[in-house]
């Protein structure tokens, strides 16, 4: 399944909803989207991964790249994910220490980290 991306703005946050597979084939599309958002002034991103069916290390790299970019603007990148099979790769790589991960968009928006 290919990658689907949609964005919307709620308050100070830009929510990026991702569906499908984030892998070496589709990751460039996500990377471009995140770069465009940051370049256009969206520095507080919430990446909703609830509809993501597959994530590999290439996709992780793109998310880390996005985090680095928003941090350069004193921004934030929060993840929304409650799927165990997706959360597992964040745990394996230790990236749960790097990303703030929430169970819902509402929780991510309410967070104060």
């Amino acid at each position, binding site marked *: 399944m290919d990658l689907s991306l949609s964005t919307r703005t709620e308050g100070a946050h830009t929510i990026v909803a991702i569906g499908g597979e984030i892998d070496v*084939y589709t990751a*460039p599309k996500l*990377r471009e989207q995140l770069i465009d958002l940051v370049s256009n002034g969206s520095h507080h991103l919430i990446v909703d991964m609830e509809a993501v069916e597959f994530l*590999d290390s290439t996709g992780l790299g793109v998310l880390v790249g996005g985090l680095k970019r928003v941090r350069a603007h004193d921004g934030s990148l929060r993840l929304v994910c409650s799927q165990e*099979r997706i959360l597992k790769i964040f745990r394996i790589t230790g990236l749960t220490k790097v990303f703030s991960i929430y169970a819902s968009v509402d929780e991510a928006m309410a967070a104060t980290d």
Partner: protein
Amino acid sequence: MPTVRLQISPTPAQVRTARLVAAAVARRSGLAGGALDEIRLAVGEACSRAAGLHQEYAPSDLITVLLEDEGEFVVTVRDCAPTGMHTEHIDPLAFLTDVGNAQHPVTGVIPSGFGIAVIDGLVDDLEVVPADSGPGTVVRMSWPLTTGVECGRTRR
């Protein structure tokens, strides 16, 4: 004799092909649930690593993927790049401190050897060894074919 022998060009699209074929064969071999997720991810990581190396060192050569299901489900991915490239286990967090490793061709952030670290975290039975003949590295992973075990992993 392998159950399935697959040769793919070193492109992102064919990495996906290998992943899908591996999952389909694993399912037919009786694996299910979490084990299938592990196999999809591990095969994708091994083939992504090989494709990245081939694009750099051997763009016209094919990557070989062998799938075997006699006694255990074994996946072997062989590249034709110079032996031993990007086989080190990179600290997954190291790239956050701008280490001097080769950068991933797609992300531009994560070191290229990162995939091995992911596989190592997923698969207990993992070997990364030089190919028997010629240049190249073999990544071998296996899962036990145990009926009724959703995520069958054994520590060896």
